[in-house]
């Protein structure tokens, strides 16, 4: 097939994926509200259809452009939204066995795709020489994989904050339950107990729209703790690539600067989790700040700030 045909296949598959996600999102929200099992089945089925279509769209895009389809903002956005949904299906539905938060993950992907097709679309085309490096696949791939994990972690964090608030309100009249008896006396002072554990629930989890705050909190932590090393790896491979393309591994280019800021904020989040008194809500707020920084790194730097990464943008 010719490049034009592949480009058309890619765009059509994109449309299929977009509407599949959109309907799956609505079905998932319906399940969240009314707990009809059939709606969950519809949501999962459509999500899988969307994933398949989107994978096709990405592959066709690569064939149309004759290169790995991670060359500009449109392609990053498509792959990002794909990975967010994939990570959701694998980690949240599969491993976490949490069924009620799908709508939020899908909403993130639907928005990302809408922005991509409305503001960032460019036809498939070959790359300028500086982008022509095998480091591109490794660097951009790991950045997008980690972005999707961090983004999903932050979606879950928002849900955690909402749920935690509800549980706290409900428990205000109740006496707090004491935490488990852990003997810390023989542990060195820097071993923080339960660094990756959720804050002790103030009230017992109650039946409600969302899973218990404890579950959401742990899920968010796991996703971010998984995404952070990959983000680190992405920055390092980016530096290696920059060394060969631009003669320096670090030059405080806006994209570099903001990826570093995002790294520092999530590092702060991980430290906060290990510090007593900073678990739960306060750590969640840091994660949200990190999410804001991630969005700036991802969108604002390419679209509004001039730097070496500008050509990875929309033109």
């Amino acid at each position: 097939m010719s490049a034009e045909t592949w480009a058309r296949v890619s765009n059509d598959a994109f449309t299929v994926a977009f509407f599949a996600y959109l309907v799956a999102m609505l079905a998932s929200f319906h399940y969240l509200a009314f707990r009809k099992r059939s709606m969950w089945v519809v949501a999962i089925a459509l999500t899988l259809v969307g994933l398949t279509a989107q994978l096709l769209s990405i592959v066709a895009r690569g064939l149309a452009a004759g290169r790995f389809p991670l060359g500009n903002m449109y392609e990053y956005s498509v792959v990002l939204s794909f990975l967010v949904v994939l990570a959701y299906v694998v980690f949240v539905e599969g491993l976490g066995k949490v069924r009620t938060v799908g709508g939020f993950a899908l909403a993130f992907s639907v928005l990302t795709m809408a922005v991509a097709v409305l503001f960032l679309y460019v036809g498939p085309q070959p790359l300028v020489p500086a982008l022509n490096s095998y480091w591109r696949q490794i660097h951009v791939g790991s950045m997008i994989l980690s972005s999707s994990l961090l983004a999903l972690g932050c979606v879950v964090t928002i849900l955690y904050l909402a749920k935690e608030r509800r549980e706290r309100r409900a428990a205000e009249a109740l006496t707090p339950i004491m935490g488990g008896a852990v003997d810390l006396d023989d542990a060195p002072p820097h071993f923080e107990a339960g660094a990756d554990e959720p804050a002790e629930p103030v009230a017992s989890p109650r039946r409600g729209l969302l899973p218990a705050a404890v579950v959401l909190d742990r899920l968010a932590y796991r996703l971010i703790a998984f995404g952070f090393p990959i983000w680190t790896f992405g920055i390092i491979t980016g530096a290696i690539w920059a060394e060969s393309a631009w003669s320096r591994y670090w030059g405080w280019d806006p994209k570099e600067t903001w990826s570093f800021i995002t790294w520092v904020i999530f590092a702060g989040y991980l430290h906060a989790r290990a510090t007593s008194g900073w678990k739960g809500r306060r750590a969640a707020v840091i994660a949200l700040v990190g999410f804001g920084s991630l969005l700036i790194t991802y969108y604002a730097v390419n679209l509004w700030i001039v730097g070496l990464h500008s050509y990875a943008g929309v033109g």
Partner: protein
Amino acid sequence: MRTALVLLLILALAAVAGSLVPQVGVADARIASMFRAHPLRARIYDQIGLFDVYGSWWFTFVYALLLVSLGACLLPRTRGLVRSLRSRPVPARELDTMRHYAEVAVPEAPDRAILGARRVLRRRLFRVSGPNGLGSIAADKGLAREVGSLLFHWAFFVLLVGVVWGKGTGFTGQAVVVEGETWVEAHANYDGSVREGRFFDEDHSGVQIHVEDFTATYRPTGQPEDFVTSATLAGSDGSATRSVEIRVNHPAEIDGVKFFQFGYGWAPVIRVEKDGQVLLDGPVVCEQSAPPEGVSPLQIPWNCVVKLPTLDPQVGLRFELWPDGRALYALLETGKAMPMVTEFAPVMAYDAFEGDLRADAVQSASVLDTIGMRRFDTGVVGAGRTADLGDGLTVSFPELRQYSVLQVTRDRGLPIVLLAAILILLGLMPALYGSRRKLWVTAEPDGAGSLLRVGGFALQRRSRFEEEFTKVVRDLGRTSGEGMGT
């Protein structure tokens, strides 16, 4: 550690300022225009170092503070880790108050049962101490978490030091080398475009690069496809020559000095004679001004200047080079700008001025100040042709060459920084995913056999420890049973 994080965040925010305000050496033109448009604001920015954030005293100060704070935090932690690596797990009593507790009845005598328990825990990679006289053992596992965490933080420390040392003792600059010429790595040969580190010891390498050929290829759409400089590298004594192809993403290296493809341009060979006497014969580097909005740099001509100060009156020649001569005629006939991607019948339009070159006032070789000069001739000269400017002055254009702009860099910190980055990743894994677990087992007589009491807890990943604890308890019962059989 909190102080270090805050300092790190301050550095990051300073970097934001650096990414929004134009920086010295990166956007000098924008700084100059800011000084013209908003003199007061520009002066304030200049005073507080906003035009050179990464070189400002306060950035250095915060960086130094970060190193001190990180080191001060890591030293005691490292001592603590060494202590806990050396010490054995300590015995505990009152196992039944622990988060996880179980009792297992085994048919063996207590002293044999406790040895069996020890084997079970060893097999599960616990560090075990005991049994002591009281018939109990203590075990722990997961020190890798703290080892990884410290490795991560020390590697980050080394990275910060490696960055400063590498940049500080190194240099980076741009070399402009015309095809067929040789360039020697030395301060004077950068024409002022070199930036040397704070601790730079004036030890330029003296390595040489001879550029044989430069080729730029473009796609039919005008998008660049490849830039290649074919060159020969030689050490400072001219030995150890090596042929290389330098292209974007593929630098060449000799003696720790790296050459990167940065840019290119055109250098016509110009020969000027006055009454048969050769005044100038060689390639002249042409430059390009920024194209107007919506015009590709490929569509506009290149400019260069030749100054002849020995003539009386002095003569200055201004050239406008069209590497593809068809573009000039297309522009003249249709008014449309055509992209010039390859050399094709190149032509140069020239303006000749006579008068005072004011060599003391005009420093730049590429600028001709025509105030106080009179234009006495103008015309066009094609490649291989000679133009007669009158009064015995002739200009020939024997051939057109290209020049390659190479970024020349030496950074000795590179291996350190790379190694540190790898160690950061290696340390991060156990630091994030490891968990510290402690277990104790005691055995006491119970009828014919003995009763094992097992207690323990995990400092992280408690839910997973629950499974592990269950398995340990199961193994304790089973293994002891096997021991009975033999």
